[in-house]
């Protein structure tokens, strides 16, 4: 079950705004989704190796060589706010 506190915590972590009315609805809906996923826990996985990826491939890598970067202004142009060669964000204090 998902309680309202969990909904608020998850919303905060995702930087989403939710009002009180939505919290109630979301708690129920998220509970349903998690409950549905819980069906998976009924499956017997006793002899199944854990996996981290659905595609059975591994060790994909590239040599340590340079490729051209984007021109600065092309990247800057994509940003909602910029100053000179920099991207610009609202004031941030703590990491």
């Amino acid at each position, binding site marked *: 079950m998902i309680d309202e506190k969990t909904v608020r*915590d998850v919303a905060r*972590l995702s*930087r989403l705004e939710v009002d009180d009315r939505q919290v109630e609805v979301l708690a129920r809906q998220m509970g349903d989704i998690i409950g549905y996923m819980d069906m998976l826990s009924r499956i017997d996985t006793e002899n199944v190796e854990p*996996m*981290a*990826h*659905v*595609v059975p*491939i*591994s*060790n*994909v*890598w*590239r*040599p*340590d*060589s*340079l*490729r*051209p*970067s*984007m021109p*600065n202004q092309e*990247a*800057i142009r*994509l940003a909602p706010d910029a*100053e*000179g*060669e*920099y*991207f*610009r*964000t*609202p*004031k*941030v*204090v*703590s*990491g």
Partner: protein
Amino acid sequence: MNKWEMVIGLEVHSELKTRSKIFCGCSTRFGSSPNSNICPVCLGLPGVLPVLNQKVLEFAIKAGLALNCRIAAHSKFDRKNYYYPDLPKNYQISQYDLPIAENGWLDVEVGDGIKRIGITRIHMEEDAGKLVHAGSTITSSSHSLVDYNRTGVPLIEIVSEPDLRSPEEARAYLEKLKAILEYIEVSDCKMEEGSLRCDANISLRRHGQTKFGIKTEIKNLTSFRAVQRGLEYEAGRQQTILDEGGVIEQETRSWDEEKGVTVLLRGKEHAHDYRYLPDPDLVPLEIDRQWVEELKKQLPELPSARKQRYIEQMGLSDYDAGVLTASRATADYFEQVLAAGASPKGAANWVTVELAGKLNQSGLTISQSPVPAAQLAQLLKLIDDRVISGKIAKDVFARMWQTGKEPEQIIREEGLTQISDDDSLRQMVEQVISQHPQTVADFHAGKEKAVGFLVGQIMKLSRGKANPEIVNRMLREKLLEG
């Protein structure tokens, strides 16, 4: 501290010196103009696919081997989620439950011996960008400017066990770790450029107690000195609280170098919940044992082994061997001086005293030394051959440093050759004896010190160029004759 024992663990981030970033082909070069080494992959634009740089994996494995870790057979990358503008994707690609290396150790020399410090794990991850705060301080600025050049530069994070018991031990551990990473050539380890960074966890507990106390984490320790001072301050702060019967809050604090204090960065209630999840863009890693064995064979002689060799085979003191092997560049320079024909003791002395002094004064590293190893070896040979005295050699060395000229040329041009010629020396000996009858009388009265004074006078007369051994012998002969 008496009543309390410090428990310290370090988390060290080290940038790997690859040419390109960990998941894209952008350059890792430090000091480029802002936002010039960026591309859709490291900016986290939608639809891009990161691909691992094989060199990063190789360097991480080498670091794991050099730190006596077990290298994972299966490893993978995970997303670490948090919001901060230096991270364009809102997650950092890192490693969570299957790091590339675990369970290692590092022997650190502390006061009275060697202490083994456990390495919990080493994992690979991408570095974040840099915030440039407009306005005078971080709190007064109205907005931040972001440079993403550093985003995606490869890092390894090396986490120690809470085995360190004092700020000095923490510093010694960090210095040793830096030396090893430099030796195996996976990182430049420049703390001033941020390519080696350190966070520290510290708690106090009563001596004899086995349970850990509540810890705080200190960030922004940007030099060896800062690591030591920051830990000293934080230990004192915690002690004051505990002595007054208070409780330590688990929190993250930031070291303020100027004020010499740690300040609250965030409390427990704002602790991050990173919600790690496997990165579906990157496929798992199956590490080939044979490759690991090959990399192991490629590892160079590490600082401890090199130090041991200097002591056992060259007869150097523990101290000199330690100073010489603390950085690979110094040890390599020293061995170049030896290769050019110098004796180990003479070379050790000149490298650790004269050369180190000059480098310190001018703020240069040994690889920037204006006096190359071969020239220092020439100078040492001139001393051994008694062309110049050790004292004159110091002046010659100073001139070599200034002018870049070879020692022979300087000696020739400035007429500094040691006087070993018997006739000229005999004249000086006779002159000094006749000028100091009282001292000569003192000598005959049994005052051994008189000889030293007379030798000094002769050296002065020759402006330091007389061969002191010959002067000594000649003077005694003359005094006993007379």
